[in-house]
């Protein structure tokens, strides 16, 4: 005898408090249990890859701010690294260090947001998010000092960064580095050992290393599954080969481990920052490109249009969400012939069905939160 039950289709999104943007999840439910999950994407598609083919290389940098708008620095970084590879530009030492510092600050800001929003998805009523926002605001203040913007930063340039940090930047950054560990301790106490969060997230949405690698998952999600893979270590860029840090790895690959890995990575970023602020050398922040040089506070004289040699380049970095890669093909004209983004949010989202089938609705939300997508990057 079989028992019939009516499947019940619920649309989570596109307008929903916890889809982190305009993302739609179609769940087929049996009671509260998920028997099927469909992802519907594209609500935020802005055709960035195609638009970029009509603009010069420098003009494309703002696009990279707007893919992953919670981590604009890393977006910039990956793109300019790809173009530099294409043009075979040697970036000055100080610029490399600045890029590293900015990328790590961005990682802390982004992870703070991810952890806070994750607690929100677990049902905490905004409190963790607001506390995380406090730290994120401080970091955004630093960004504002460095480049004048807070969210869409447009700081990196092909061959360096747009300008050097002002002299009062360093003391403020050091002060922040002194404050943050205390706060992180507080959050770890409140969140990592929070029994409700543990009950809600442990054993939920498990990905084994095999599943994770076969879905090409990267970043904290991959590391939560126990695979110690970090582009910063595996394929060092910037100044990461000169600083000492650890890869944070999870044990069981569940939602809780992703959360734990993010918290630990914030600590590691602090560690990198502490070393980097001491080790950063003096010098120019922009490479000599053609005839023009960018002066830190002088006239911007970098050419707007480069003509890289014909060829192709792929550069990858460890963005807060995972392995972010830019693939660029040049045909010798001032605009890229092909501009492709390997966006970690999109790829990390693909095992969502695998993770959520068999769980309940509440779990699906938590799993989606643990993937930490930015829809701007999913849809591009």
């Amino acid at each position: 005898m079989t028992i019939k039950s009516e499947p019940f289709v619920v649309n989570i999104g596109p307008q929903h408090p916890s889809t982190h943007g305009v993302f739609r999840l179609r769940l087929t439910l049996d009671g509260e249990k998920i028997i099927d999950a469909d992802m519907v994407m594209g609500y935020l598609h802005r055709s960035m890859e195609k638009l970029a083919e009509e603009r010069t290389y420098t003009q494309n940098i703002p696009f990279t701010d707007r893919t992953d708008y919670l981590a604009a620095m890393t977006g910039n970084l990956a793109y300019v690294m790809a173009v530099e590879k294409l043009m075979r530009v040697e970036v000055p030492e100080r610029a490399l260090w600045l890029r590293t510092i900015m990328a790590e600050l961005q990682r802390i800001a982004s992870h703070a947001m991810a952890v806070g929003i994750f607690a929100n998805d677990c049902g905490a009523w905004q409190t963790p998010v607001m506390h995380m926002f406090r730290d994120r605001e401080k970091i955004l203040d630093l960004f504002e000092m460095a480049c004048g913007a807070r969210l869409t930063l447009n700081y990196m340039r092909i061959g360096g960064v747009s300008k050097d940090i002002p002299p009062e930047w360093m003391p403020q950054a050091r002060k922040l580095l002194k404050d943050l560990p205390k706060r992180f301790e507080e959050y770890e106490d409140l969140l990592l050992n929070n029994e409700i969060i543990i009950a809600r997230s442990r054993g939920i949405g498990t990905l084994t290393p095999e599943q994770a690698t076969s879905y090409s998952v990267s970043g904290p999600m991959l590391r939560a599954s126990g695979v110690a893979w970090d582009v910063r270590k595996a394929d060092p860029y910037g100044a990461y080969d000169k600083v000492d840090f650890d890869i944070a790895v999870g044990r069981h690959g569940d939602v809780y481990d992703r959360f734990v890995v993010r918290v630990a990575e914030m600590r590691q970023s602090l560690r990198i920052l502490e070393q980097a602020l001491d080790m950063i050398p003096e010098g120019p922040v922009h490479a000599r490109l053609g005839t023009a040089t960018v002066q830190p506070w002088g006239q911007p004289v970098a050419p707007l249009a480069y003509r890289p040699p014909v060829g192709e380049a792929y550069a990858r970095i460890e963005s807060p969400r995972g392995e972010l890669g830019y693939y660029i093909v040049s045909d010798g004209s001032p605009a890229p012939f092909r501009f492709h983004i390997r966006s970690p949010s999109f790829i990390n989202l693909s095992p969502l069905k695998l993770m959520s089938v068999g769980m309940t609705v509440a779990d699906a939300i938590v799993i989606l939160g643990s993937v930490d997508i930015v829809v701007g990057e999913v849809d591009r």
Partner: protein
Amino acid sequence: MDDAGTIIAFYVLAGMTIGSALGVVVVRNLIHAVIALIGTFAGLAGLFVTLSADFIAITQILIYIGAISILFLFAIVLTPQSGRNNQETFLRFPALALSGLVLAVLVYVAVDTKWNVTEQDGFAETAGTIGELLLDKYVLPFEIASVLLLVAVLGSIVLVRPEPAEED
């Protein structure tokens, strides 16, 4: 029981009870029928209050409105494709005749019998006495009732439990 308040209360509550009961018959949507049934239960609770049966009135609210109506709603929601209509079968007219007959007999008996009516006033307090009676004179039925409830709980769980997946 001849002060104005009680009389008004009786007629209002009796009207509510019977009106909602007729509503259950007439209404075509089952969920609306349940609402009408809740109205009947509530009216009855009020009638119990006019009979100074406060404990029973509260129990009526607790059990009938708070629990049994929910069971009805659940049963309706859990059987979604069977139609929510509240139609009668072909037995409509025989049923009408039967219930009319029963009503006539009952009313005749009620009116015609010379009831042995007491002149006492309403009870001051019933809960304590009911409790004592339940645990003293009626303790055996009380225990049997609890066993019955247990059996009912187990029975309903067994009935709606999904079959364990067969392994083949």
